[in-house]
């Protein structure tokens, strides 16, 4: 009994899910659910920040639709713990990919435990999208379109992306560069020779 148990923080509005996960982890013994929160309100943010959790398991449904893609980042702003999604509603792939692991409500207890262990190995470098702070090639393409005055819808059509994916890219561009306005992004694009000065009026 000398091995320290890994501490789990659960964020789910569902009591059934919370009790289910807690019970699976108790049976296994290597993990202990320390805290259960129903959402990520201001107060609860402080709880997450102060917790010494090794893993946060969250149902992405606690984030409203528009902010769901950035949910993982919000949690990572508070804690260095691994973050696992346990979605109870259909969630888009981009969002799912930003988590260290995803557990399904139909997973066997053994699968859940193995994913938890896996996530601890995975999470060493924070959220995956933040591993590379330089703009990705796709982000640069999108930035150029924004600088040239294209609307999200037009950009989505050009690259065959969903409009939500374009919005996620734009959020990441702003997070990395610190620049929010279209005019500011145009300055960035010109200073970094991403566009020809003649192509903006």
């Amino acid at each position, binding site marked *: 009994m000398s091995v320290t148990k890994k501490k789990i923080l659960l964020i789910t509005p569902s009591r059934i899910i919370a009790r289910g996960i807690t019970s699976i982890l108790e049976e296994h013994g290597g993990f202990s659910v320390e805290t259960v929160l129903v959402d990520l309100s201001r107060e609860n943010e402080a709880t997450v920040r102060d917790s010494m959790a090794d893993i946060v398991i969250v149902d992405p449904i606690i984030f409203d639709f528009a902010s769901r893609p950035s949910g993982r980042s919000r949690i990572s702003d508070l804690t260095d713990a691994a973050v696992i999604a346990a979605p109870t509603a259909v969630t888009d792939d981009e969002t799912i990919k930003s988590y260290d692991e995803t557990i399904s409500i139909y997973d066997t207890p053994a699968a859940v435990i193995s994913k938890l262990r896996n996530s601890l190995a995975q999470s060493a470098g924070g959220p995956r999208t933040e591993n590379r702070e330089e703009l990705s090639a796709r982000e640069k393409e999108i930035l150029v379109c924004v600088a040239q005055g294209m609307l999200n819808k037009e950009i989505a059509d050009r690259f065959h992306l969903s409009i939500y994916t374009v919005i996620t890219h734009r959020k990441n561009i702003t997070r990395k560069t610190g*620049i*929010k*306005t279209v005019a500011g992004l145009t300055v*960035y694009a010109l200073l970094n020779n991403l566009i020809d000065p003649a192509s903006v009026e």
Partner: protein
Amino acid sequence: MRKNMKMADLIGADYRLLTVIYRLGIKLGFGEKTVEETCRESGVNCDTFLLIANVYATEGYVPTTEMMTAASAIDLVRYLHASHSYYLDHEIQDLSRIFEDLLRPCTPMQRDVIMRFFDGYREEVENHFAYEEDIVFPYVRSVAGGQRVEGYSMETFEENHNNIDEKLNDLRNIVMKYLPPVCDTVTAIKALSRLCTLEADLEKHTLIENSILIPMVNRLEGKCQ
């Protein structure tokens, strides 16, 4: 902050209040005089001064109803108007000169791009202030005089009071992160510290409008009916 404190102690504790006294028309050279004496000699309502200074200098400060009632809406508008002039005539002018210096070694394209962005910001600020000067302040003055004006209310102002901090924030990041390497670092530091000061001061300005002007005028509107 109390009326019987020495003005010098108050300013000494938070030098940012220098811009507050300047905008209220209080000059330096107050020697050992108290806050109350200094205000009286400069013809400033001391309660208004304390209200503004508290909101300005104390994080998360919530004024009491008594303080709001004691202060004068006319003086507050005078202060906000003086702030607008201070930003446009001093801060933004100075920044414009600093940017010209800073960008001198750049290529014409780089210079144009950044200056055009700077001018865009200046224009946004001018428009934002012009609306308040032309519509909001005259309205506040007439409500403070007991006269309700048809077709406008503080609610309309509250709904339309948008933030003008995004471009300024962008400008700061552009100077800090993406300035062409030929630019002089000392001049860049000067530009950055002025940008940061302006950003922080404008944040307080908006806070004063939202947490003093709006509730104060809301109450005056009630009295008019």
